[in-house]
């Protein structure tokens, strides 16, 4: 490859039509809260583990909604279940149980 001094950014297009959303639908059936999220990021801002790792529940949910679970699920491994995200969530989402259900359904 000739080095032109610049490169092409790989496309970040997400083909929602091609994504397999069956697991997400399954998640929504047990956790109707999963679609309540408005991605405000309060959870990520208050996250105890987020100080040390890249854990970001907002991003995890966005990723799941868009069918790119492989990119986001490993983040959940560092969650300490402390529940601060639950306390701050303006939508009253039971985030701890949501995380447990994600783990159960996506089997990470």
């Amino acid at each position, binding site marked *: 490859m000739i080095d032109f001094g610049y490169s092409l950014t790989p496309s970040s297009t997400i083909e929602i039509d091609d994504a397999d959303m069956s697991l997400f639908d399954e998640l929504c059936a047990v956790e109707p809260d999963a679609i309540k999220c408005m991605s405000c990021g309060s959870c990520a801002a*208050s996250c105890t583990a987020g100080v040390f790792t890249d854990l970001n529940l907002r991003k995890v949910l966005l990723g799941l909604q868009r069918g790119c679970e492989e990119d986001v699920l490993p983040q959940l491994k560092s969650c300490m*279940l402390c529940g601060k995200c639950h306390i701050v969530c303006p939508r009253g989402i039971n985030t701890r149980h949501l995380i447990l259900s994600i*783990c159960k359904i996506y089997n990470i």
Partner: protein
Amino acid sequence: MMRERFISGYDHFVLPFMVGMIFVLLWCIIGVIKIMVQLERKDRIKVYKSLVNPVIMGKNVRDWFGDCLFHVKLWRRNKVLGYMHSSIAFGWFMLIVIGHIETFLYIPERGGLFYYPIFFRYFMAVESTTLKGSLLFFLMDFFLLVVLSGIILAIIKRFRSKLMGMRRTTKLTLLDRVGLYSLWAIFPLRLIAEGFTAGVGGGSFLTVPVNWLFASILSKPENFTIAWWAYSIALGTFMIVLPYTRYMHIPAEFFLIPLKNAGIKVRRPRKGYALAELYSCPSCGVCLDACPMSVDKAGLKNTTVYYIRQVKRRNQPRALAIADKCLMCGKCSVLCPINISAIDLRLALRKQQPYNIEHDFSYLDKIPNEALTSAISVGGEKVLYYSGCMSSLTPMVSQSVQKVLTTAGIDFTLMDEQGTICCGRPLLLSGRTEEAKALIEKNEQIIKESGAPILLVSCAICYRIFKEDYDLNGVQVMHYTEYFEQLAAEGVIKLRKQEKLKYVYHDPCELGRGCGIYEAPRKALARVANLVPAAKERKESICCGGSLGSLTLTHEERGRITENSIRNLTANSPDRIVTACPLCMKTFSRQSEIKVVDFAQVIAENLVEKEKEE
């Protein structure tokens, strides 16, 4: 003097009783063996050792009489219920004991027969009266009367439970009803049967008048065998259904007490010690009124009595749903007449659930311990202050604690200024004991490395796990309520009292019922304002609804629990609600119309600064 009426010493009517008796005995023996086998080896050895330990055996005897026969705990709570239970339990016990004494005194060769002491009056005839004989007869009638009075109360309670101070009672199963009705029938039938025979077999102030009554209205009072058949059938029915009803608690509790006193804990959801607890539940329904979830009628089915019922039925999905819903506030256990470890039972079930996540806490090891802490050197006693992860949501708590420490001139180090590692209690409460160990180990390292003799904690949740599950090599763990009260009592800090203000103190579940700290915060608060009591407080305090214990309660359900808890706190119209747990504070302040403040804030606000004093 007495003589035997029948040479055989036997009549067919004893059969129902004997069948029931032998069935129950076998059931209990098999049950005891099953439980002992299911116990872990070290637990089993502990039980055997406890049986030869005079101190523990003394405790066992005390509890057997106090709990099983006299129901002392119930007496303390509710006199009528106490009388009802102890009259039936102790009265029945005495009937059996005196029945045996009679048999051994008058016809010792029949002592080996189960039924003889029970149906003594049928088989024996009075020849002449002696003082000893009439005393025994009097006692038998007396205790029969005692039991009958208890039965009458029990019948009233079934139809009008409010008269007995219980708002709700448990919904009985079909077999429970069979057991209940046969229990009600046993003693009136005994009175009738003994009344019929009182003319021959003798009697006292209760049975003799019944005999006269029968003689005056019935043409052939000699045909009394049918009454004895009825009595025996009632006894037999009760004992046959016993293992499948709540009445199994009667024999089970006798066995549970030595296990409990030996210090055995629940390890598995329905095996070993847990099984003994499950069968010891009398379904009395005290937990119904105790449970914070009962504010919703739908929440009633999530109480401990129904949890136990579902586990006994092996209804795994329902049991798990209840276990996950529980706030783990522990109120039901504290009020339970036999102190069933409701939290441990549920936790054991939670622990069994697969987590489907491979936890990776390796990032913790990469954080250098000093990176989180920051020392503020003032001189004096060295204290390590852990504000807990919740303090980032309630910075006022941490700031107030620091203000008090600075004013007191105490040398302290902040353990988690640059980021907190969770104490591990939330993971533990979710049944993830192994995962929690990673967090516990890291925190232990930081604490031990600091070299501080005192670990000060401002979160009730963290405090509990530090006390119970951390190995800190003798570092003293202190909750800030204890520590500040100690400082104030020693005169290290001076507080001014605002005479006009009325405060109410909320006992956080983890601090009060969890660690038994009720007095220190109250004493300290009484130094700064007037404390008014809540409607229910101390060990009966109502969970704020924010508890991390529950995994599945919805936002709305939690809201209603919080509302009820606030109503309870504001019964005496206080100016402020004071709590000593950041989670309670967060939860209350969302819904309370009255200002909710943390204990540390109140103390910090009312500090008398030393310079001003001079």
